[in-house]
């Protein structure tokens, strides 16, 4: 086995090991959430995932961003076939291991090149939209230094990867036509042939070209493995979680709120003493916080809300249609989801460091204010707009439940509404005897 093959194997193994380690952490963090059954109606779930995640159906609601995104998405998926070949070549020291496919191979490489060029262009347009045109939803309050940097890094890496891929092919193509040893005649190079001409590759000697080809090959594959390992730290993790996140979507009507079976059972037993009260909640596992009514911290949200948080790619479509945000209120559904992820990762770091959870004196309310929570109209414009079916309303309502049921802290005037419902069975201060007065007028 050659030194370069051993080197490649080491790099590859290290990348896979580190990525697996981080994905397991993400999984562990998501499972800190409350239990929730989301495996009913599997046929419907597969269909939804095919349409929304695979088929990008909600992306194209905004045609410009949607179509550009489909280019990058298709580029990403299809060029991964090329990565498979790169891995095989890296391990076995072959060159273009799939070239035996002949005409089909030319077709594949040719279309990869065109996609790579389109992806390059789409990423460049994305960068311009974000940093030159400064489209509003990329510059709102929650888009602080890191989210903005993260977006820039992702797009730049993709541009560099595509550049390396095309330059590698350009050098390879030139070497092939020079009849260089090891560089078998294979593939079609509609884009890189032009690049080779542009950069004057034809005038270079073979050793320079081999240098360029090898450098780009290593840059491309190390870049991809590095990018893979960047995902768990980044909003770009959506490329993986989008699929399960859509599969586990809420299938009930959007405005149907989640049940609280324990509260229902307690109220039943209160009203009818012949019904025994529900058994007390199970003791939390040692060191874990007790169960709350509603959500104080990430442990009280469902695991789906936590998966939502890791799936969010911060596109801001939710916030751009939120009636509260549109009218200048503090609430931004994207911020709610980003704060949830930040808090969850903070909790994860405590567990990493101490080996178990230890109260750090913080919770979701350290990041999300009551003012934000009370501004929501539950209109579900955000859940409708989200291309990967994230549900910020669920988090908001779970946190409201905690504020009211454990802290008796509703938005001030809501207490009056509670009181009149309790006293009159009506949301306004009229007794039951007034219910039919509309007839008299």
């Amino acid at each position: 086995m050659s030194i370069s093959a051993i080197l490649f194997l080491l790099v590859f193994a290290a990348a896979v090991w580190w990525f697996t380690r981080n994905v397991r952490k993400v999984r562990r963090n998501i499972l800190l959430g409350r239990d929730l059954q989301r495996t009913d109606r599997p046929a419907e779930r597969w269909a939804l995932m095919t349409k929304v995640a695979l088929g990008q159906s909600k992306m194209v609601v905004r045609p410009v961003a949607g179509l550009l995104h489909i280019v990058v998405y298709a580029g990403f998926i299809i060029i991964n076939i090329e990565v498979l070949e790169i891995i095989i070549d890296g391990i076995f020291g072959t060159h273009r291991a799939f070239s035996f496919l002949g005409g089909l191979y030319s077709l594949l490489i040719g279309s990869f090149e065109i996609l790579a060029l389109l992806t390059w262009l789409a990423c460049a347009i994305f960068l311009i939209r974000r940093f030159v045109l400064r489209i509003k939803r990329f510059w709102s309050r929650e888009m602080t230094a890191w989210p903005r940097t993260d977006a820039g890094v992702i797009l730049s890496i993709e541009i560099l990867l595509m550049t390396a891929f095309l330059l590698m092919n350009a050098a390879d193509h030139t070497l092939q036509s020079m009849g260089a040893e090891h560089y078998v005649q294979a593939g079609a190079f509609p884009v890189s042939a032009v690049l080779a001409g542009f950069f004057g590759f034809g005038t270079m000697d073979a050793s320079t070209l081999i240098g360029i080809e090898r450098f780009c090959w290593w840059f491309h594959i190390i870049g991809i493995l590095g990018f893979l390992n960047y995902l768990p730290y980044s909003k770009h993790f959506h490329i993986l979680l989008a699929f399960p996140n859509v599969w586990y979507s809420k299938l009930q009507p959007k405005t149907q709120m989640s049940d609280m079976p324990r509260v229902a059972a307690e109220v039943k037993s209160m009203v009818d003493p012949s019904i025994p009260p529900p058994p007390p909640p199970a003791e939390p596992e040692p060191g874990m916080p007790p169960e709350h009514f509603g959500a104080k911290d990430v442990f009280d949200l469902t695991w789906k809300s936590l998966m939502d948080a890791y799936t969010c790619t911060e596109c801001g479509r939710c916030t751009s249609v939120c009636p509260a945000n549109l009218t200048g209120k503090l609430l931004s559904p994207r911020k709610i989801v980003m704060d949830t992820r930040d808090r969850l990762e903070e909790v994860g770091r405590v567990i990493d460091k101490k080996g178990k959870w230890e109260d750090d004196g913080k919770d979701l309310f350290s990041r999300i204010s009551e003012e934000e929570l009370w501004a929501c109209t539950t209109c579900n414009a955000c859940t409708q707009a989200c291309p990967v079916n994230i549900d910020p309303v669920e988090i908001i309502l779970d946190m409201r439940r905690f504020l009211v049921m454990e802290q008796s802290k509703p938005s001030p005037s809501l207490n009056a509404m509670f009181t009149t419902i309790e006293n009159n069975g009506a949301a306004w201060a009229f007794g039951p005897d007034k219910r039919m007065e509309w007839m008299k007028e």
Partner: protein
Amino acid sequence: MPQPLQVKTMADYTASGETPEVLFWIGCMGSFDDRARKITKAFVRILNKANVKFAVLGQEEGCTGDPARRAGNEFLFQMQALQNITILNGYGVKRIVTACPHCFNTVKNEYPVLGGQYEVMHHTQFINALIKEGRIKVEGGSFKGKRITFHDPCYLGRGNGEYEAPREVLLKLDAALVEMKRSKEKGLCCGAGGAQMWKEAEKGDKEVNVERTEEAVGTGAKIIAAGCPFCNTMLTDGVKAVGEEGKVVVKDIAELIAEAGEL
């Protein structure tokens, strides 16, 4: 001179040993709010005209618990739900129609798991069915050719996927239905949902209802059609806020149908 309203309670029906074909769930707003009471009466006139044997609960109706639940008070919601379900099941109610999308959503989606299973319809769905079955005839009347825009209630549209029934009914008025840019799935909220109706808005630079009313008025329609008493109030206030009072009116679909038929 309009006909006097014919309304019987569930208790009346039970006493006479009869079963109504549907229960009209009026809701707190339809019972107590001056503006929403007009919607209640308009819908009753339609039901009377179509000879629908319907009942109301009268004094036995209570808040569904929607605002309490959305304001985080699950105990209060459960209390209301339990009381209402006990009464509804006690009368053996099977079908319910309501003019409030919030009551509609709660009874239809949130009561079943608590033991209350009914066929629940929004009044625009019910009116649409009456028209299709030929139980009422609708002609444009004074609305013929008028520009009307429809504001989708979140709890009917995005919440429960019903965008067409209200529009189908409106088209029966031979009116020119003009859509706002933000309509159907993209409809903008009036600002009242999620218990906002009972509190001041948080600090911002605009009221949600004004934002929405501007859009509705911008279509050039002089009639804004609504399908929810909350939206109706918010948009009526919005019309005043944008200085269009007297020029633009907000009407529930039931009111438009009743007026067109001079009921």
